[in-house]
């Protein structure tokens, strides 16, 4: 989730129950003193209320960002005392063929995963957005993968995509179609990961689109139908354009998550075969915890952070689009 544009624009003070002291009518000094002490006690209460949560978020969310940047300038194995190496880790990054390959895999994965998930989610949401018999059952079937864990998804698809005994190849060969090696082939493994994660995320996309579709005012569609617009026309001309902000949100959210792909790769291919599914986060994990090069891993993490922060900032800009009144 990100900062909404609404928050950025609301620069006024938070609503308070009692008016601020300086707006009260000037009274005897005794009263002004009371107002001041009330404000002081309110501030004290405020700090006391936020302290536990904010300290925890600071220690585990904010300080590590700076710390990670510091580690990226060190040779650090997380055991022995670290050594300063300046920008050596970053220099090494640009010459590392596996890092370059991991970026390429991540980009190919994202370029396939995001549009496919988006299209399938939209179509599924459009199909599910009606009141017909059994709709609850259909929705449950589509939504269940949302709560299925990434590791379970990986284990299940390793079995479904088993080249010899898996359900998918069996179905393909029964239909007279060619079969695949999936996770066992360097040329196919990344695409197999795409198929698996699309299954895991379509339910989520559908859920978001469905909520958007159900937020479309019904009278708008009815008015269009009175004017002779078909039900299908109303979908393409009215509902779809109104879904633009939802679509924008989903594109960014799916992109950020696909850049962070790790669990499903760990559970299926462990980055192989022949590094063909080594994505950026898998490489970070490998470097930090298999080869104990935490400094180098932190440098990769910094690059990833910059990319994700840029995407988030672009999203914030786009959602403040003046044409839509700045609302998401």
């Amino acid at each position, binding site marked *: 989730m990100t*900062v909404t544009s609404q928050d950025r624009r609301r620069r006024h003070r938070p609503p308070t129950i009692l008016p601020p002291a300086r707006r009260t009518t000037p009274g005897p000094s005794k009263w002004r003193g009371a107002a001041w002490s009330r404000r002081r006690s*309110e501030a004290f209460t*405020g700090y006391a209320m*936020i302290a536990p949560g904010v300290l925890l978020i600071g220690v*585990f969310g904010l300080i590590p960002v700076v710390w990670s940047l510091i580690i990226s300038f060190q040779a650090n194995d997380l055991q022995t005392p670290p050594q300063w190496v300046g920008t050596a880790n970053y220099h090494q990054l640009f010459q590392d063929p596996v890092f370059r390959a991991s970026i390429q895999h991540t980009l190919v994965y994202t370029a396939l995963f995001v549009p496919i998930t988006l299209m399938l989610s939209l179509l599924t949401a459009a199909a599910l957005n009606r009141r017909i018999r059994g709709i609850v059952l259909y929705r*449950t079937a589509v*939504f269940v993968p949302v709560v299925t864990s990434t590791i379970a998804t990986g*284990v299940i698809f390793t079995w479904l995509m088993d080249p010899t005994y898996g359900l998918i190849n069996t179905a393909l060969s029964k239909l007279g179609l060619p079969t695949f090696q999936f996770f066992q082939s360097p040329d196919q493994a990344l695409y197999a990961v795409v198929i698996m994660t699309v299954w895991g995320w379509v339910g989520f996309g559908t859920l978001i689109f469905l909520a958007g579709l159900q937020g479309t005012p019904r009278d708008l569609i009815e008015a269009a139908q009175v004017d002779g617009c078909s039900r299908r026309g109303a979908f393409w001309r009215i509902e779809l354009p109104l879904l633009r902000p939802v679509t924008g949100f989903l594109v960014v959210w799916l992109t950020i998550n696909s850049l962070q792909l790790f669990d499903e790769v760990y559970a299926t291919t462990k980055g192989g075969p022949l590094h063909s599914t080594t994505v950026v986060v898998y490489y970070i994990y490998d470097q930090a915890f298999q080869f104990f090069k935490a400094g180098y891993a932190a440098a990769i993490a910094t690059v990833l*952070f910059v990319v994700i*922060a840029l995407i988030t900032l672009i999203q914030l800009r786009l959602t403040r689009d003046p044409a839509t009144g700045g609302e998401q």
Partner: protein
Amino acid sequence: MTTTPIASPTSRGQRRRRPSAWHLVLIPTAILMAAPLLWTLVTSLSSEADTHRFPPRLPTSLHWGNFAQVWTSSPFAHWLLNSTVVSVSCVASNLILCTFAGYAFARLQFPGSRVIFIAVLATLMVPFQVVMIPTLVIVKDLHLVDTLPALIVPNLATPFGVYLLRQFFRTLPTELEEAAIIDGAGRTRIVTRVLLPLMGPPLSTVAVLTFLSVWNDFLWPLVVTSSPNVMTVQLGLATFQSAHHTDWPVLMAATLISQLPVLALFIVGQRYFVRSIATTGIK
């Protein structure tokens, strides 16, 4: 049903006569989406010989023994317990800490509140992989590596929970609290006595999403734990997978066991899950 007496018979009659053509789209979609989990169930009840048969087919008899084998050959019960302890602690702590922080950011004036709130929001943008290495160092310095608290402490308060509850408190009318203030109630009392009854929807959202993310978390438990008696069920499943990588029936039984608590919660509270995810856009 409160449909008008004129409209209801015709629309119902039409529905009876001619089922919607959308079923032709929806049935294959539902089957495609449900197939992986259904096949997991089928495999978990097959014998190992059934799975090495080509083409695969439904088992001739049900092998419940696979589930028993998962239970006896690995500390699965212990992993489930660990996951439950970790998830429930994180949910409880988030509900309390985020409520108070959210209330203070929404209602109280204190110097720096805006800056602090923006700093909290900024951490929402930080992917976990970026803070993972320093977090491990912090946990190491606290001598918590390979313990359950290591899995709990970093998730005790989440920025999204603070944000969600702060937004919720801002939608409430202040009149509710004014009466209590005049009666001399303190802020803590206002939150716990006056506002708590109204906080069902946002608190259930925080609870559902925290539970889901902690229960399904994998990378952090992978990094910070190593001994089997501290593993969560996701890490346990991955370990189990490498130990039984071709014994599909037992592996599928283990997968189902690992998903059972969340699936059960989902089916009971589907409405809450769907609403929580739809309103916040978080999986």
